[in-house]
């Protein structure tokens, strides 16, 4: 099974009543899940020996493949074909796809995962005997079948990293679609693919450190030294570091934090990167993940830093659209963090607090409040920090960041190079009294002292946290 489960699970709720078909079922994970949901299921595969014999009575397994399949037309509430279409010879591809589509009853679902032309196998000698198709090609073929229209409920196309025997680590170019056939009950036809909103975390995580290379091995060897660690999601997307998040999560509660999603870039996020985020964040078993309310790159330039957005309604919509796509593909609550900024982007129509509130509510995300950034912005831009806090959607503030900055000419910069100043800790206390904060993370990027020194800072924050979070 190579499709992330959360890219399929909503189908259980959206499909009309009726039996389900899975072709090229393999171990029949999908079919088993449907059977456990009380559906009658037929799982078809050339090798049914891999399907567990301890299956519900309503699940049937039969030997066969797509080419010999003669499914009953307009019969199934859902038809699944995942990572099997590529094994069809090109001469059989179109007809097989038509048969699958025809088997879906009106209002029913068709879930397909195909290898696209970016898959490494497309360059292999055996590619001649295989079929590769992207989402657009699949949709164009379906449109030409004269079977009525199919509505796209969920779509993904990108590279997906996988690791399993016998291939080890490898990448697939993948096109994944969940479609709804036109017709069926009118009220059900209006149901959309669900995108979970932010879930308020139930338990306190405590106080911890954002992990940096200077002390990562030492900290890893001391489970319990901090309540929670924050790890940079972006660092663990690719081999050989692609299992690091999992390694850490076995020792500490982990909060994945990123710097490269660039939610403020007015373009759709890279789906391959989001698939990587989904995989890595899944390893962390975290209650939320986070990135910054900013842009970091545009197609021509990577700033490798966090650049402020124009405080406009247009940017609110940009962030909301990008956050929606992130939430679709990464089914863990997303928190956005306020950044330190040293100039206002032209065109702003509102103040920062209003912008943050609008974004958080429109994008339906949580807020990671960087108290140091807030204090520096207040100082650099001449506003009252507590009044700013009061204007924020505090009910969605579940995590805080603290660090120490440095003065440079006429501004104080968020350098993460000094101990957390006392005035920042006072603001932390102010927030703890008003917001349901579940975790505080101390950040230190440069001028990093011995771990013991950082831990004593953590301890001080921990004492404050416990005063308000018993």
């Amino acid at each position: 099974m190579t499709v992330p489960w959360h890219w399929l699970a909503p189908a259980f709720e959206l499909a009309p009543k009726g039996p389900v078909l899975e072709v090229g079922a393999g171990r029949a994970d999908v079919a088993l899940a449907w059977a456990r949901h009380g559906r009658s299921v037929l799982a078809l595969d050339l090798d049914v020996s891999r399907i567990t014999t301890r299956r519900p009575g309503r699940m049937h397994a039969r030997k066969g493949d797509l080419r010999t399949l003669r499914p009953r037309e307009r019969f199934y509430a859902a038809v699944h074909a995942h990572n099997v279409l590529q094994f069809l010879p090109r001469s059989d591809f179109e007809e097989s796809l038509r048969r699958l589509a025809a088997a879906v009853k009106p209002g029913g679902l068709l879930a397909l995962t195909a290898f696209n032309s970016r898959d490494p196998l497309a360059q292999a000698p055996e590619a001649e005997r295989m079929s590769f198709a992207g989402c657009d090609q699949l949709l164009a073929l379906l449109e030409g079948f004269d079977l009525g229209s199919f509505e796209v409920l969920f779509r993904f196309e990108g590279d997906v990293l996988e690791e399993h025997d016998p291939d080890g680590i490898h990448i697939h170019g993948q096109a994944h679609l969940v479609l709804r056939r036109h017709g069926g009950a009118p009220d059900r036809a209006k149901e959309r693919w669900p995108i979970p909103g932010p879930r308020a975390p139930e338990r306190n995580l405590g106080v911890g450190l954002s992990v940096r290379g200077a002390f990562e091995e030492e900290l890893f060897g001391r489970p319990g030294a901090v309540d929670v660690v924050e790890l940079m999601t972006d660092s663990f997307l690719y081999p050989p570091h692609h299992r690091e998040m999992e390694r850490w999560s076995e020792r500490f509660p982990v909060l994945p934090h990123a710097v490269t999603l660039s939610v403020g870039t007015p373009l759709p996020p890279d789906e391959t990167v989001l698939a990587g985020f989904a995989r890595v964040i899944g390893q962390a078993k975290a209650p939320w993940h986070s990135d910054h309310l900013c842009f970091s790159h545009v197609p021509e330039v990577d700033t490798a830093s966090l650049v402020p957005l124009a405080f406009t309604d247009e940017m609110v919509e940009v962030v909301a659209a990008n956050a929606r796509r992130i939430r679709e593909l990464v089914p863990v609550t997303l928190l956005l963090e306020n950044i330190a900024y040293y100039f206002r982007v032209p065109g702003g129509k509102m103040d920062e607090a209003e912008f943050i509130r609008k974004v958080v509510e429109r994008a339906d995300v949580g807020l990671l409040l960087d108290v140091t950034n807030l204090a520096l912005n207040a100082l650099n831009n001449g506003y009252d920090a507590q009044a700013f806090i009061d204007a924020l959607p505090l009910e969605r503030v579940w995590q805080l960041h603290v660090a120490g900055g440095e003065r440079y000419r006429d501004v104080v910069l968020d350098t993460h190079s000094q101990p957390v100043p006392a005035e920042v800790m006072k603001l932390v206390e102010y927030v703890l009294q008003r917001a349901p904060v579940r975790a505080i993370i101390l950040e230190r990027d440069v001028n990093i002292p011995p771990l013991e020194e950082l831990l004593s800072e953590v301890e001080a924050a921990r004492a404050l946290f416990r005063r308000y979070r018993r």
Partner: protein
Amino acid sequence: MSALQLQTAIARLLTSAAFREQVRRDGGESLRAYELTEAEHRELLVLLEGRLETYARCVGAGKEDFLLGNLPALVRTHVPEALLRQALRRFIEARPGVRLHPRDAGLAVVLRWLEEDLPSWPAETPAHARDVLRFERLRREVSAALPRYPHPKHLPMPERLRRHPAWDAERFSWDVPAGAPGEVSWLYKHKDCAAEITPCHPVLADLARAFDQPAEVEPVVAAVAAKHQVDERLGPDVPAAVREVVGELFREGSLRS
């Protein structure tokens, strides 16, 4: 698209000192390349004389530090930092769109660019700089390679390694003799249950060359072991050491500098 145009102009101003200078010189004409409103154009020019310059210096220094900090240790220890910083500044100007993740094997892009930039480096550049850069680029590419090959679980390494498309190794021009001044050495030892590798020994260069094309493991091991038969650093069983190095090269998580 206007928001994207504005962001692109800001990103260029933040990351390119040359562009900022050009905008100042031509009174903002260079910003006309972006579809900005008159108000945006005017405000950017005002910002340029204010805090944007301060922040731009931070962004530039941050990107430079980020790149430098993520260069392989071998490069950082064997190529003078001042030379690397100069070259990285040129890289940032020349390739502003290259996106890097921390620890990303995509750093090979930077290493390749630095290697190609070498002709413009000053005369005091050490002779081994080219090989250090080239070797580390290859190593990154190898570590990022995602070969597809069947191999039984009990074997420590695949029987056959498939060439990764990113590999286009040329011959190394300069192998490091053991004990030579300015030696590039690879300390090969075990720590706990894992091999600890501090780059680099010429064996690795030989392996990089050999696996630049589809190759059977054992013949390569035999050839490389024969070449380095007298190298005491590889221990008494040279073929076993070389075989282990091959296993390390193609095993995940083994190639951290």
